């Protein structure tokens, strides 16, 4: 029933007598025991807000600490006499505290630390599992293995796609660089064009604009029909990198075929 669902009730509730007394004891007499009782009582609220507002970002313990700080501020500033529920006062105060924390820690301009670490863990686990099993894992398997929730894994996959940083593009430890480039060399420019004619007649005319390694990967996926994991193994990069390179070169191909005069 929507009435319960929207929970309008809590925002209109007035503080019960004992709560009111606790606030008076803390705010007027500085009674720490009263404050402690209030903290215990409303900690679940802070915890719940930290979980909702801060999901997929910073480590939970850090956020909980910030939310608790917000709760303490709310306990100091709440005006019992105004007759509003503490909760409706505390929620914006706590959220405001977390928001400020995000601003101060440069969250608006950088990829959050937690998300970055998770992306790297997902990438590594994905590779390890693919190596062990011979095929790529599912998101559920990754989530279970890493003890992340499904959304965290999905966000990590998106992040890996999006990162243009050198760190993710750098050769993987143990990857055999020579194997990759020699394979690339062996297919050569004209050869690659010829083989990829099947991809699309217009596309083949602009393939020369795509770097050799990307051309090779396109060929492996679309002509030889290898899976991304198989390609990753042959080229000596991660499947995530294969995915990113494929996406980038297909984007490039599309842009090139659309550009005036591209199809010669």
């Amino acid at each position, binding site marked *: *029933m*929507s*009435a319960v*669902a*929207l*929970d*309008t*009730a*809590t*925002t*209109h*509730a007035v*503080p*019960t007598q004992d*709560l009111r007394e606790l606030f008076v004891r803390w705010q007027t007499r500085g009674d720490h025991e009263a404050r402690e009782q209030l903290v215990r*009582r409303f900690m679940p*609220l802070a915890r*719940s*807000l930290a979980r*909702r507002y801060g999901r997929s970002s910073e480590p939970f313990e850090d956020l909980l600490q910030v939310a608790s700080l917000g709760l303490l501020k709310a306990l100091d500033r709440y005006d019992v006499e105004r007759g509003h*529920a503490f*909760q*409706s006062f505390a*929620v*914006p105060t706590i*959220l405001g505290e977390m928001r400020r924390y995000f*601003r101060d820690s440069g*969250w*608006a*301009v950088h990829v*959050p630390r937690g998300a970055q670490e998770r992306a790297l863990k997902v990438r590594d686990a*994905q590779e390890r599992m693919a190596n062990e099993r011979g*095929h*790529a*894992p*599912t*998101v*559920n398997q*990754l989530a279970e293995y890493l003890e992340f929730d*499904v959304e965290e*894994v*999905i*966000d990590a*996959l*998106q992040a890996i*796609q999006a990162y243009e940083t050198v760190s993710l593009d750098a050769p993987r430890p143990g990857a055999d660089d020579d194997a990759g480039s020699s394979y690339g060399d062996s297919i050569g420019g004209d050869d690659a064009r010829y083989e990829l004619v*099947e*991809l699309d007649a*217009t596309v083949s005319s602009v393939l020369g604009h795509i770097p050799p390694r990307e051309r090779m990967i396109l060929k492996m996926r*679309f002509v030889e*029909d290898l*899976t*991304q*994991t198989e390609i990753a193994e042959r080229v000596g990069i991660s*499947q*995530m990198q294969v995915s990113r390179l*494929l*996406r980038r070169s*297909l984007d490039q191909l*599309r842009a090139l075929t659309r550009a005036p005069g591209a199809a010669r």
Partner: protein
Amino acid sequence: MADIPHVRLNLSNRPENVLLVRQTLSGLAETIELDPIELNDISTAVSEACNNVVLHAYEGAKGPLDVEVCAGSEGLEVVVRDHGGGIRPRLEPRDENAPGGIGLPVIHALSTRVEFLEPPGGGTEVRMVFATPAGADLGPAPEELELQAAVPDTEPEELADLMAITIGPGSVAHAVLPRVLCALAARAYFSTDRISDTQLLADALVAHAEGSIDTSRLNVGIRVAPRVLEMNVGPLRAGSAADGLGAVLETLGDGHEVSHAGASEILALHLAARR
């Protein structure tokens, strides 16, 4: 106006669909340049409104969860709609310790403005406005769209879920559709290989649709079930449905079909988990 970012999701009230809404907002944030904190605010508030529909609107039964996001004159406007019981606010005081959601205070705290409406025909509509610097100059909301792709027509299975997505313009579709399909492919137990294939296919579809739809909105009907993802894309201009998509469809997809709907075409796509 053609270029106003607009997404409509017609979903069911399954809990996992809230993730699709969040992914949509993340994609949208890229195109209208929301910063991560603004996105987090919006995403948290909208999730609360959606969770509310999932948990309470239908009292355990199935029902629609409709979400519409568009950039209005005041900023980003998000409407979450259900067809359930309607709002009947309980105004009597209640013990603060009673277990209860904090959804409403969260929505109030994070949105610039929120309205709770009871549309004719029942249900509840939560209309949230988020004033964002990015949203301010995006122009008025688009008029309601009539066209919508047919959702793949199969008998209902317990595990299958049906949904429809309307999305545009192309830049928004480009950022949102691959994300939504990634989440759906994950739900269908696709491997990360196939998930990434699915995203490549989504990219190609969006790029293709830009040249073959008459409006600036792309319509996709989706059926998701274990190990299967089916899509109906269209209506597309006659003769253009699969034109130029050849290799991408052949390699990344597991079958496609073009059907005619009046003067237009619908592209039906089948994707499987493979192994």
